[in-house]
């Protein structure tokens, strides 16, 4: 039993160490990415990874700000397929109204000529 506990503890410690290393690696990559000039991402694979890390970090900060402000725009946009469908239908109806208005104008013009 104690042996098993020790194994679990060791596994968790290794797990934490991996995370810590990954975290430090990611932070360092973000820092490098932030100093990468635009257009330099294409220069080599590590510059690409650093640039990408900086882009992801920027996105993370944006989401964080939105969450703090009580907005959840990124997720709202992705999740609200129904709202999007409703908006599209509303647009189609409005567009149809536009067509009817033009048609009515044309009919009026024809009537005026009769």
């Amino acid at each position, binding site marked *: 039993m104690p042996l098993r506990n020790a194994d679990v503890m060791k596994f968790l410690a290794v797990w934490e160490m991996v995370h810590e290393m990954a975290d430090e690696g990611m932070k360092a990559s973000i820092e490098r990415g932030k100093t990468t000039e*635009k*257009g330099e*991402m*294409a220069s080599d694979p590590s510059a*690409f990874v650093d*640039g*990408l890390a900086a*882009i992801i970090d920027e996105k993370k900060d944006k989401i964080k700000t939105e969450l703090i402000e009580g907005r959840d725009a990124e997720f709202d946009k992705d999740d609200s397929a129904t709202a999007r469908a409703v*908006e599209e239908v509303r*647009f189609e109806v*409005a*567009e149809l*109204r*536009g*067509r009817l*208005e*033009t048609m*009515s*104008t*044309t009919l*009026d*013009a*024809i*009537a*005026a*000529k009769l």
Partner: protein
Amino acid sequence: MSAKSKRRRQILWVATKHWWAAAAKAKFGFVSVTERREIFAREMRYSFEELGPAFIKLGQLISIRPDMFPPQYVFEMEHLRDNVRPTPFEDMKALIESDFGRPIDELFDDIETEPIGSASIAQVYKAKLKFDYDQVIGDDMPAGTELAIKVIRPGSLAKIRADIAVVTPIVNFIHKFKAFKRFNTPQLLEEFSESITSECDLRIEGRTSDQFAFDFRDDPYVMTPAIVWPLTSRNVLTMQYVKGWHLDQSEEATANGVDARFLAIYGADVFMKQVMVIGRFHADMHQSNLLLTPDGKICYIDFGIMGEVKEEHKEAIAQILAATVYADAKRAILYSADIGLVVGDDERKEVIAKVSALMKRTFSKSPRDVRGFAIGFLSILNEQRVVVPRGFGLLVKALVVVEGCAQTVYDDIDIVEAAEQFTTELVLKHMMRPARLYKKLPLAIDAAINELIG
């Protein structure tokens, strides 16, 4: 002599005159192929300008068909200029009154009799709205709102159709010659006839404009003029008049507090969004169709020519653009096959090497030269007799136009650089799609296991 025969004679005379001029300038073939094509393309443009609206429109069609014509012709046609004298206001007024069955004073307030814009098939006038209008997209438009009224010149479609009828036998005759066969001129003429008929129905343009406004309804930096449908017909398009500066007036816009540089770069992102997210793009985005507004937006006008991207092609296009951004010729050619640009096995190696060298040449300097790359790329495909799908050609051309627009504002703008973040994010989004992951993950795990135990 009938009017038709007279016009045919005139067309043949102008075409022959410019052909001889081109042949002489090209020293009867003793210059390079590229130079020869440039000279002939320029003379062809001069002849189109001389022959009037139908040919100007035909030239505009050639300018968006790099799949059919060598790049020198495609890019030369961008410089076509309308030299058409404006139609008198009285004629335009008669057409408006006939279309609506009412006197013009009952339709508009304060209509100006001098056109604010004049092109080969339409003229634009300024006026004011007489009544409140609830527009299709956006807020209500109050009475007194300034309007721009686009009106088709009376008889212009009939004149163009008459010219098409005159040139059809000539085109069919030319098509019999081997040298002209690959341009497929009869098909081009048929397409031209269809596109001009649709362009002369301004209701179609109005609908496209509304659709564009809807597509970008959440974008704080993009706008289109609202359409006033009760004052719109086949020949008349009434829309909101948008005050602003054309791209070549960006200094004035900047002096008035508009961040023109930001908008020029943003315009490239808007184009990417149109192509890779929405699937419809404004394919006639030259300078005069864009405005920088005093409230810091880009206003898109004139939706006569639109391109479409099929849903299943979006990922391939994103991959091609990303490959172009990262100068990876092999990847660009690989994904091009997914949208119908198939390079044969025998030529692939040579094409990749040539495209790679071209990327080095055009993308190693700052800003990267997208136009130079596009001309070179299309020339390589042309030399290798690779069939370019229509949509692909239109897209390449539109990208070059986007670069031209951005660089009108600031000539150091690098649109590839501006597109870097957008395309990278989009490619990642496509790569992380659950369906793709489901397909790729077992392969990735297999590879990882092989690496670990191998």
